[in-house]
């Protein structure tokens, strides 16, 4: 494929993310990967549910007292919004509007970064309270579940940052359109997982 082939909004394909065979492969392959990730998180959730609130004798933490709902609410809003901004970015991808796409992706990245920083703050807050990773089975399960999600966010951030810089000079082409598109799928998936985290971990944790 000629990477330098120039497109106009009129010649840009309807579905740039799967215009070539390689792109189609990546597209399907990434979806399948997300299917596998579902099970990965399901296992983490199952473990968390089985271990929540359990610690050594005299263990003093419970989901009811620990979690900070307002903080979680803000984090949720950030991540949900970043989902929308990445949708905007994909809109511009389909319109062959590279600048705007990059811009929205950058906004997405910033929102994600905000989320991540709040998560770091949340964790460090719990650690200060004495709820460390090694403190109990509950804490291990909690940090591993939420932390794995956080790790995914971090990976997403690195990924999109690399993409934004790598393609700044190249502009949009059919080779990197798929890269952007799979990133956005990934980002939405992270959001999906978070929906379950705030529901199962935080909300149901507070309700008991």
């Amino acid at each position, binding site marked *: 494929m000629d990477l330098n082939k120039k497109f106009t909004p009129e010649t840009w394909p309807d579905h740039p993310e799967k215009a070539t065979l390689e792109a189609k492969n990546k597209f399907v392959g990434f979806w*399948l990967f997300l299917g596998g990730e579902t099970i990965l998180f399901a296992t983490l959730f199952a473990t968390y549910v089985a271990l929540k609130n359990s610690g*050594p004798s005299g263990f003093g933490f419970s989901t009811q007292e620990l979690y900070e709902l307002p903080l979680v609410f803000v984090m949720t809003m950030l991540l949900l919004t970043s989902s929308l901004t990445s949708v905007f970015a994909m809109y511009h991808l389909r319109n062959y509007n590279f600048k705007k796409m990059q811009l929205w992706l950058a906004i997405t990245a910033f929102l994600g970064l905000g989320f991540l920083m709040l998560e770091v703050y949340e964790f460090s807050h719990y650690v200060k309270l004495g709820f460390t990773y090694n403190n109990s089975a509950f804490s291990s399960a909690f940090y591993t579940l939420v932390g794995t999600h956080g790790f995914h966010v971090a990976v997403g951030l690195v990924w999109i940052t690399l993409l934004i810089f790598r393609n700044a000079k190249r502009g949009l082409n059919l080779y990197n359109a798929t890269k952007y598109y799979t990133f956005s799928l990934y980002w939405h998936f992270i959001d999906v997982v978070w929906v379950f985290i705030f529901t199962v971990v935080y909300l149901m944790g507070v309700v008991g």
Partner: protein
Amino acid sequence: MSSVAQKKGFGATLWDWLTTVDHKKIGILYFLGGGFFFVVGGIEAMLIRWQLHKPNNDFVSAGLFNDLITMHGTTMIFLAAMPILFGFMNAIMPLQIGARDVAFPFINSLGFWMFFFGGLFLNLSWFFQQVPDAGWTSYASLSTASEGHGVDFYAIGLQIAGGGTLMAGINFLVTIINMRAPGMTYMRMPLFTWTTFVASAMILFAFPPLTVGLFFLTFDRMFGGNFFDHTMGGNTIIWEHIFWIFGHPEVYILILPAFGIFSEIFSTFSRKRLFGYPSMVFATVLIGFLGFMVWAHHMFTVGLGPTANAIFAVATMAIAVPTGVKIFNWLLTMWGGSITITTPMLYALGFIPSFVMGGVTGVMQGAAPLDYQLHDSYFIVAHFHYVIVGGVVLGILAATHYWWPKMFGTMLNEALGKVTFWFFFIGFHMTFLIQHWLGFWGMPRRVWTFMDGQGWNSANFISTIGAFLMAIGVIVLVYNIIVTSVKNVKVANDPWGDGRTLEWAIESPPIYYNFPATPLVRGLDTVWIEKMEGNETGITAAEPIKDIHMPNGSIIPFLMTFGLFVAGFGAMFRTEHAWGLPVLILGLLWTFLMMGARSLKDDTGYYIKKDEILRDLKRKGGQK
């Protein structure tokens, strides 16, 4: 890049294999790597059997024995059986669907190297004298209590290898979904392709739990996690659940491709279309699905309570039905056919009674109250070797003979093949049949030795003899392979004469772009159809010959995995050596660097020009 056998120096050849992204070469790499580990695992089995050939034997120590069974089980399942099957999938499946390559050649190579380095990592534990010793199941409480780094080798090694497996699975799935030749609908796919598909789907859903479980184990052992520490509120049963949520599907991941292999062989050597093809496909999918619903049948004695036990017992038994459908369809494929007993067919014929015997003992174990007696006894050892050796290993040996000419361009000696079969087959039944009774007679599994006077002596002795007969069989096979490769008599496209699927319509071994022109598929067993209609080449092109796009080779997969391998050592020795942490960080950094290198570069492959293809064709004497 050209396949033309130019004279190359050793360095160039090595470089070629390290950087290859050609699915046929990666297939061969998998086959060789898996074959090597099969011999390693087999030698471990021989040591196990020798230790148990008489009561109170002290050939190996108690600790070493546990090392041996753990490494035998782990090696055979993760590093021998699965990779060898991946080898065939890689080498053959794309040919069967008329594809030029797999969907992700780069990831394919990455998957192989991760398997290989993971396996290497695991087996280096022997040189550190800290070997995994908690059984291939590594049940927590024992695995968290195990001293030294043995279990760390297990957790990290399998983590690396498992990552490779997941990649391979996704790669096969996308290949089958997107790269089928025109006309190759799902319901025209050869059964081996179908079983590859279902097994890969199972990998996709079964390996993430293993990943999670291994992380838990690693965290608990190395980073102060408490998942399995009950004094800290943890629970060891979680490991058992997670392991078997992975572990049970895993056994079907092993057997389904073997089913696929036998389906091809039965119909080829009965010269008959596979009987009940749609129900075969349906049964495969159903087995794959049910495989996820029965994991707790390994845990009947854990004390989950009667309700869980009853539900999982019935679900387990249900799997007998689709499996039976397959068995009877194979029998009916032979029925009314024209059966010729070649070596592959001989293995297929040996498979039927052996596997059925193993399958039905599985159903017996599924009867929960009966399993209270059978669980963790030698009956279980007998069951799973009947299905694994009688199913998977016979399948692997059959495929080795069946597809050898396609992979290497020369035929294994048929007579030696039959010698291998008879030694292996007789030895196999001798080893494992008697073990059912050992189980009945109260012999637990995983015992390092046994006291005299319990009535187990002769049975164990017989079992050991059988194991050595198997070893003779394998040695004959190795001899056969060496002799054949030295002689290297080239064969034609379809040396068996009865080939039905697309791989038999191209030369052996296929040229690196497989098909000069993409084939058109007009039905199930397309080559057979073409031949019956008088098309001697067995293939109709779907399009005119034109430029072919090919992927570039790359050394990055190898380097990337090497970083992980190094990081693994760093992680393990982090607390006791000063170099641990830096090595861990450097290793991971290196890996990320390689990932960055991959992602920053535009790698769009290259084109083979039409002229070159035409030249190749002319040289071969004008394939259409």
